[in-house]
């Protein structure tokens, strides 16, 4: 029982985690991309479509990553090259993604999908209590954990990560040091898009292997909230994703055992938690200063 609950929590948390860790990198570079929901749903429909056409879920995953990145580069071109407003462009990207995916996905409605099966690691998966949770999961679960570790290492222990953080902190100074601000941001945006695409593929190839219109159901927005919740720290994103995952699963289990908490309240919980965390972190000026990218959402136009 305990272990199966853990596994369902992981299934709910993984797409949030993947999308949020991508967005974290984007925001650390100083760009606010509100189009996560749109990129995710594009990934979901692409992943599903390519998987059933080719018969290979892995090809589906790959295509979803590419489409997510390509879709985010549209955002990048608009906000970084044409310097449009990031908030408005991000919202437009979400609406565009929802619309296009609905159109493409029309043909897939009701079709049986392909599922990316779990990979059990021998011996380790037989461990009591946590063996199946940690070592007999779908491949994207492992990737999500590796992503967190990789992003954390990249941001805080590599020179490229330092460069990315510097661009998010003060793009004028970065420019003055000869860092190519726009190029760094393009790369970050593309990475964020690829992650969102991957998260979408998780939904349509692992979570519920079929295509349902609007199947992201607001997870992109939760991912965005998660980044703030985690105060832009990768490992806190992991904790936050599992917390939010647990809340949404807890809601189902609560209904089963007859505890009636309004489901609307539980759906609102992640956002409520984010607000509480925002209040808590803003009490610590130093923490806020060190972790919040101060150029977040600000357009960069170098004086020439």
């Amino acid at each position, binding site marked *: 029982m305990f272990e199966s609950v853990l596994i369902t929590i992981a299934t709910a948390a993984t797409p949030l985690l993947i999308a949020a860790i991508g967005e974290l990198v984007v925001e650390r570079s100083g760009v606010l991309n509100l189009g996560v929901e749109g990129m995710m749903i594009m990934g979901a429909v692409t992943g599903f479509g390519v998987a059933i056409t080719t018969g290979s879920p892995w090809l589906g995953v790959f295509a979803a990553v590419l489409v997510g990145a390509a879709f985010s580069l549209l955002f990048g071109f608009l906000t970084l090259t044409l310097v449009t407003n990031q908030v408005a462009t991000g919202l437009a990207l979400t609406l565009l993604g929802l619309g296009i995916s609905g159109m493409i996905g029309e043909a897939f409605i009701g079709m049986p999908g392909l599922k990316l099966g779990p990979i059990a690691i021998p011996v380790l998966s037989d461990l009591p209590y946590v063996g199946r949770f940690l070592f007999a999961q779908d491949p994207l679960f492992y990737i999500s954990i590796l992503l967190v570790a990789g992003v954390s290492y990249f941001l805080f222990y590599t020179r490229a990560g330092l*460069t990315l953080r510097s661009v998010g902190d*003060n793009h004028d*100074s970065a*420019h003055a040091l*000869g860092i190519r601000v726009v190029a760094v941001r393009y790369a970050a945006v593309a990475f964020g898009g690829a992650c969102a695409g991957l998260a979408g593929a998780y939904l349509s190839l692992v979570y519920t292997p079929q295509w349902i219109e609007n199947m992201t159901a607001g997870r992109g927005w939760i991912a965005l909230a998660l980044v703030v919740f985690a105060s832009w720290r990768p490992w806190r994103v992991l904790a936050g994703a599992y917390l939010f995952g647990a809340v949404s699963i807890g809601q189902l289990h609560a209904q089963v055992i007859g505890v009636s908490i309004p489901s609307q309240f539980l759906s609102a919980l992640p956002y409520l938690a984010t607000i509480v965390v925002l209040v808590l972190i803003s009490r610590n000026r*130093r923490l806020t*200063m060190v972790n919040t990218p101060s150029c977040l959402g600000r357009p960069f136009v170098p*004086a*020439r």
Partner: protein
Amino acid sequence: METQRDGEAGGLLDVRGLTKVFGTLKACDAIDLTIDRGEIHALLGENGAGKSTFVKMLFGALEPAAGTIGWKGRQVTIPTPGAARRLGIGMVFQHFSLFEALTAAENIMLSLDEKAPIMQIAERARALSKTYGLPLDPFAHVGDLSVGERQRIEIIRCLLQKPDLIILDEPTSVLTPQEADKLFDTLETLRDEGKSILYISHRLEEVKRLCDRATVLRHGRVVAHCDPRQETAASLARMMVGNDVEAVSRPADAGGAHEALLEVSGLSRPAANPFAVPLREIRLTVRAGQVLGIAGVAGNGQGELFEALSGEALQEHAGVVRIRGMDCGRLSISGRRLLGAGFVPEERLGHGAAPHMRLSENLLLSRHATDGKSLLGPLGTVREGALTAAAERIVETMDVRMSGTDPEAAALSGGNLQKFIIGRELDRQPAVLIVNQPTWGVDAGAAARIRQALIDLARSGSAVLVISQDLDELFEISDAIAVMHDGRLSAPLPIAEASFEKVGLLMGGAAPGHTIDNALDNATEQA
């Protein structure tokens, strides 16, 4: 390698006809300037004379509209700051070049092309900082540091790049005389090693002492090339300003017993964050008609003291700070302003003024509580007419020069914005005025004007407290000088008894008999 090839001419930099136009304003108009190897070259000029625009073109941050840059005998274009650094041009900026969320070592690492590990860079920075007497904690977050400490990082960062030409923009503004001396030694050593330095400063004495040649700019044009050693400070100032700079005059105090307008007793404050300085039992009194100067090396608690006095940070007990005899330790900034106090913080942009709001709006922001009756209508509506008139009055009185009417604060040069911010407080005739770094980065003409205004305010019966790292300034305007070190304030020295040496020793934290070097070492260890 190139040094070997065309070293015989001695010419390092040869700029001809460099021009930059912003809209209708010619910020730089056909500027010629040459720098030889092993030369310290001064670039003089008032704020707005085009110095910053010129060096930004040299550093690849701005693109020239016309003109050529010759570098080591070759004509070059410098499209980006990265290109400038690769050519061997390093720059110590005055603004906008450090990352607040990163540590000092990370800031330094970003500007180096080599891929050394951070610990090694931190170690080199620490060693270099020790050599040059610029104490530096490589792992402090820049956001927690004062202006002076940030400047140390900039200097160290530039030196680590091993450039052939170093551009220094007002490097000594925040150093103690002893620290400045050490920096001059460093610069002279660098010159002896064959490096060249382009030195921007408003401090003419310093330029006379240090620089081999000088180029003077006024309104975007070169008005003179000269040898500063052959000139007097007055003649240099005349070239910069175009006419004589009026010396600041400090009429003698009228004498008699004056009322104490600002009294602070037993002011202590724990450090707000791990890098801040706690205040320890600060005690001071400023009487009507008096200017009290507070000297000290950056980051010894001056910022914390200002916050405590202005009401940005409240005290435990109301009686700790008294303005005009009223306990106000628990009052907010507006509450203290209503008692007749005025405050000018250190940072002009972001603290003293909202950068992207107009001057009139900035005026309303600081005076809505005290002058609500004249500036606001009955329903809290803004009286545009009265507000604009007040802003224009300040602009006129303080001779603030700007383009257009009522521009955004950020559009003004540093000196002009500072004149406006000080004028905004003076306009109210405050009984108590507390100013932090009144003329940091301000040109000679504007600085003289600001200093004279502070003295005049005191002589008209107000109490003026000036926190400054510029000792020349404090000696020019103060009736007494106290020194802050490590959150403690010394007893005030009457100006007649104060000397640079005495104050300098107190700034280093040394009791008589100790040397400054010991004090600096202690500071490094503490940091």
